[in-house]
């Protein structure tokens, strides 16, 4: 990797992705080998929006590399409440930390913040924008379960507001995956994302559907996201589509035995609990993969400090 910051999955080449995933696999196989690798290193956690899991996952990753974290705490208790700008906050915390992780409700916040700091900055979600470290752990999970070669994936649910979906779709264009996007019409992929996917050369492998039925049998992976009731202008509209996008044992009868079911979690009722114990379920494993993948990511970003980036 030759990036100072990780802002969007669009900046990741196939080689970059493979570097992170390979490193994650090494760490996963022998975590003790990296236990002191980043002793003395401090990671700054700037979460302007609650996200316990992502935050804990980064915190765990840094500590397992021998480092520590500083946490600005909740927005309510911080100087943000007093009206401090993000640009000021990141410049202050940069003085305490060797790298920063930013979650912020505004789109483009990570891009802007990265213009103010010299330490590596990882975007852990910018509004409806991007969430690239989630994408890396999704890719890791896909590689472990189904492989990234010759992949047919269905991505289902709220494709409009789902930043994890957008990030994953961009990254998968590196692997020529066949991508089937399944959603109610009102929650289709934003046209801008479709535009980008075409720009990235993903034109052949992108299809949009309103129902999972026709594509389910052909899928290697089904990536389910939560349809948020509050996104619908009226309850009736929600009720019409809600049932269509829930996965249970009966739905999966039409699927391949090898189908891997993923979900970025938390889920509500998109995946019935009866799936949890089957070989299809990979969502808890997916969540656990966040730690080795973020360890690998931090290791690669921090190890480039002081160098000129040439490899």
């Amino acid at each position: 990797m030759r990036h100072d910051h990780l802002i969007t999955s669009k900046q990741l080449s196939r080689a970059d992705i493979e570097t992170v995933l390979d490193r994650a696999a090494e760490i996963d196989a022998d975590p003790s080998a990296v236990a002191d690798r980043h002793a003395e290193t401090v990671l700054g956690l700037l979460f302007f929006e609650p996200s316990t899991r992502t935050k804990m996952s980064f915190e765990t990753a840094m500590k397992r590399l021998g480092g520590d974290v500083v946490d600005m705490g909740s927005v309510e208790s911080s100087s943000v409440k007093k009206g401090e700008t993000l640009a000021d906050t990141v410049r202050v915390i940069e003085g305490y930390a060797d790298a920063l992780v930013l979650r912020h409700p505004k789109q483009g916040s990570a891009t802007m913040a990265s213009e103010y700091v010299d330490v590596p900055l990882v975007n852990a979600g910018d509004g409806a924008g991007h969430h690239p470290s989630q994408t890396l752990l999704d890719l890791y999970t896909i590689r472990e379960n189904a492989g990234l070669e010759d992949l047919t994936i269905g991505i289902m649910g709220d494709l409009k507001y789902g930043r994890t979906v957008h990030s994953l779709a961009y990254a998968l264009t590196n692997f020529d995956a066949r991508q089937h996007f399944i959603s109610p019409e009102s929650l289709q992929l934003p046209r801008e994302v479709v535009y980008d996917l075409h720009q990235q050369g993903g034109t052949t492998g992108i299809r949009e559907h309103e129902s999972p039925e026709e594509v389910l049998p052909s899928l290697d992976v089904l990536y389910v996201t939560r349809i948020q009731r509050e996104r619908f202008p009226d309850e009736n509209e929600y009720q019409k589509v809600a049932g269509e996008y829930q996965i249970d044992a009966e739905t999966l009868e039409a699927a391949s035995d090898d189908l891997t079911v993923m979900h970025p979690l938390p889920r509500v009722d998109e995946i019935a609990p009866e799936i949890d114990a089957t070989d299809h379920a990979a969502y808890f494993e997916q969540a656990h993969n966040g730690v080795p993948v973020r360890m690998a990511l931090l290791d690669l970003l921090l190890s480039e400090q002081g160098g000129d980036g040439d490899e």
Partner: protein
Amino acid sequence: MSNDRDRHDGDDDHALRVSKIRDGTVIDHVRGGQALNVLAILGIDGSEGEELSIGMNVPSDRLARKDIVKVEGRELSQDEVDVLSLIAPDATINIVRGYDVVEKHRVERPTVVEGVLSCPNPGCITTGNEPVTSRFSVLEDGVRCSYCETIVRDEIASLIDT
């Protein structure tokens, strides 16, 4: 373009509507109705005492109807001219000194425009209180915010930061 009448249609045929200037810039072949947006993009509103002549919806050979903007005492920079291309892609810029056109050029589309347009996405970081200058990359058929990535194809003039 080489048509003599066309080249002069602003200055001669419609002399009564848009008077000649001595020193300054004539922006010709602006799409009909866009003259006020051209002034907005240039940050000219007359409050500095600038002497302006504006012709709107003047008949033209090249465009069915065109606008002309004449700014006395001010020569546009290349940057300003480039930004004009977003709303006036056919415009010709004439720099006038002593009543003579001393330079004449076409606008060129820049790859990036900074500090000119404001992002229409209320969820964009540039719409908050941050000390950030708006930046848009110029696409073939629109502009795109460099921060939130929103693409705007129509109504670019309405984004002009005034």
